[in-house]
């Protein structure tokens, strides 16, 4: 039941996304082809291009062609290079996904232990200093956007210290800075969440009972508290992963990372609308898939939520 409803929600989201990306080209004021080719381009060229793109056909027909294309992996061709957009996506997507997945793992590896530690240390108002340090530190870390981390990391670790390459994707070392830039903000946010959720769980009777059983503190915290704190964290954590994928656009730009985001930025500045359209569709679809996956995972991890929904 739960699975069906979630999948239906995903399908609705996907439909809305396709409609939006299709409408995008038509919402552009004036003639998108003229805008892309520039005012100096001859009228015949604009007319041929428009016809080649099918933009002169009635809207419903265009939408049908668009849908058919998307389903068969044909996203059109670039205005500028003539490359098939599907090929661009296939080339670039793996690089973006690697970055996003590594950053998510890095963020979780840092954030979960940190949040857990902070919660246990500040339980019942103990260690006010730690609490203030933790909340203001993570608060500030969350407030700084990833592209500024990127610039700071490049200046310090690539240009000044020369430890890592400043840009490009060559060898394992070139992953370190972009992953770090992408992970710092989410790590701080997740650490805050884990702390809040852990504090809540620590106040529950089952924790008192586990403590009454005199289980070792590590066992109470890791076996009893952590799984419950994590299920609650996961919902927001999922939203975060979506944001992280979007944040990779800026990070890719700073590190000249050969990913989708870099290509999207280029396409938008160059008014290469078919590429922009295809890439935005893919980004949106990834976000929807991630959200669906988080929902399903949550249902799997927390047996109660499935029961409540059915």
């Amino acid at each position, binding site marked *: 039941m739960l699975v069906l409803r979630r999948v239906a929600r995903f399908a609705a989201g996907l439909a*809305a996304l396709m409609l939006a990306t299709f409408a995008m080209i038509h919402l552009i004021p004036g003639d998108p082809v003229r805008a892309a080719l520039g005012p100096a381009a001859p009228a015949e060229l604009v007319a041929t291009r428009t016809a080649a793109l099918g933009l002169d056909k009635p809207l419903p027909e265009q939408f049908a062609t668009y849908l058919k294309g998307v389903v068969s992996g044909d996203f059109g061709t670039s205005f500028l290079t003539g490359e098939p957009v599907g090929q661009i996506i296939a080339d670039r997507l793996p690089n973006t996904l690697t970055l996003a997945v590594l950053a998510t793992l890095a963020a979780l590896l840092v954030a979960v232990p940190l949040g857990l530690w902070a919660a246990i240390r500040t339980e019942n108002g103990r260690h*006010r200093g730690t609490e203030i340090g933790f909340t203001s530190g993570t*608060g500030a870390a969350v407030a700084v956007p990833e592209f500024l981390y990127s610039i700071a990391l490049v200046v310090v670790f690539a240009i000044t210290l020369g430890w890592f390459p400043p840009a490009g994707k060559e060898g394992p070392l070139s992953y370190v800075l972009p992953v770090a830039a992408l992970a710092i903000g989410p790590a701080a946010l997740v650490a805050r969440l884990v702390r809040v959720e852990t504090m809540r769980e620590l106040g529950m009777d089952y924790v008192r009972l586990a403590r009454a059983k005199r289980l070792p503190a590590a066992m109470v915290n890791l076996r009893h508290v952590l799984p419950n704190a994590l299920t609650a964290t996961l919902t927001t954590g999922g939203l975060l992963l979506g944001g992280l994928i979007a944040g990779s656009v800026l990070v890719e730009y700073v590190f000249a990372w050969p990913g989708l985001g870099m290509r999207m930025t280029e396409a938008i500045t160059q008014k290469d609308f078919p590429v922009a359209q295809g890439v935005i569709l893919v980004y949106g679809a990834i976000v929807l898939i991630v959200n669906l996956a988080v929902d399903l995972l949550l249902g799997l991890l927390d047996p109660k939520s499935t029961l409540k929904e059915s």
Partner: protein
Amino acid sequence: MRTLSGLAGAAIVALLLVLAVIGPPIWGDRAELIDPVAALQGASAAHPLGTDNLGRDILARMLVATRFSLLLALLAAAIGAAIGVVLGTLPSVLPRRPGRLVSGVVNALVAFPGLLLAMFTAVVAGLGARGAVLGIGVAVAPGFARLTQTLAASVAGADYVAAARLLGVSRTRIVTRHVLPNIAEPLILNLTTMIGGSLLGLAGMSFLGLGVQPPSYDWGRLLFDGFGRIYVSPIVALGPALMVVVAGVGFNLVGEALARTASRSAVHGAAPAVPPRPAAGEDDERRDTEAVLEVRDLTVTFPGDVTPVRDVSLTVGPGEIVGVVGESGSGKSLTAYAVGGLVPYPGVVGGGPVLLCGQDVHALPEGERRKVLGTSLAMVFQDPMASLNPALKVGGQLAEVATVHQRATRADAWRRAVDRLGHVRITDPARRARQHPHEFSGGMRQRAVIAMGLMGTPRLIIADEPTTGLDVTVQGEILRLLREVTEETSAATLFISHDIAVVGSLCDRVVVMYAGRVVEELPADRLGAAAHPYTRALVSSVPDMATDRSQPLASIPGRQPTPAEVGEGCAFAGRCPLATSRCTAERPPLEEHGKAHRVACWEVS
């Protein structure tokens, strides 16, 4: 300490506002001054942050750009707020189905990264400041819409809204006249955070070259220009980057501080003075060797000199169930937690030794104490829903006691867990052990918790209102089980309850607590002959078959003093029909009053 960050944020924001006003008139000319000789310089005394490709001073440009950057952020936030408020209030104005559709769309958009929304909008609206502002406005709108929706829903239940609805006021008018004015404050507070977010978003857009286009410039555009030269002179990019960070953090800190003022939390008092705990040996002559549990002069103190438990002494024999009764706040639960060594921080336990089978458990070394209490103390809490871990299988939660304290193998521990579940009459225990707590009924959960206590050899069972959350029929089962388990293990059971009728039927002895002290102690079958006016009032407030139903049930006028209010005399004096001047001035000691009966009252002893 906490407001320090708020003050810092306010200072930053104020400084930015001043810069926005005075920046362009003061440094405007310098920012536009083209000097081809000085083009593309790094940091120097004349140009602390270097110069751009036309030789213009970057520091001056950065300061001048404050106005434009803030202005764009304000605009984007205003657009976001306008869209957000409309989307957020629509569900309460529209009929049910379209309303739900709108809130569904808002929820979907909240889960969608703002940057993607912004880029989409920017493609449609075109490159430049206009497109970027619109894009960021659209990007921040869903979050604001959700906030509005949540706040509106919380107000919609209020009495004045219900009254307006009854009077036939239209939905639109309810929203504009009643709902919006009442949620305006939190919305405006959140606007600060949103301005900060817009500022960062716009900087990001301009940095990608999708925002402000030359000859206009904002911080993001300066960053874009400087970024290309980052290898040669990092300072030209770091300056604007730092400005964006400071501004973003400043708005964020102010936003957080504003949100905090909206929900002020309680302050913490000073550390308590701890009465020294005398060694076990000093009280040897008073020790009852027969007793399983013996507690002398137990005190629990919290910071601010609050003492919710004062000088409580208890003795419980093997197989005996002692009921501890009293109103909420009488200190009965805290007494039991102190005995079990479970008083929450920052509470401090003081007073005499806690002897479990003649052993001062709190004087034992840490490792030893863990083992003793882990296997010999069983606890049953009020809410069986909450006392089992929802994420773990019931059998596993039982088995861990054996693996940790008795060093049993996992298989042995599991077998014992299944056996114990069967022992408390859970049918098909092998299957049940593999289930999660939510698959158990309330009564079964409580039995599983009792079974957990039976994994070791309980010497002391503390049951804190174990039947309050259960149906009356299930209550009886649990009470019978507690009785059986106590007799079978010869444990001492402390049964905490506010229900004197249940206590009277289950327990052997009753200890009555009031405002942190024991006021009476008597055999349960003599409750009818209770001496203390408070106990008598408790007993007479229980209706039975003979109660005259036409009369209102007896209740005790007044309220129990809080721990901080307890003075010199008898704490009950204020509510006592027998109270004299002596009662308010001098506290009556707990004294013998017939066989196995002690009472603390001047008027009856």
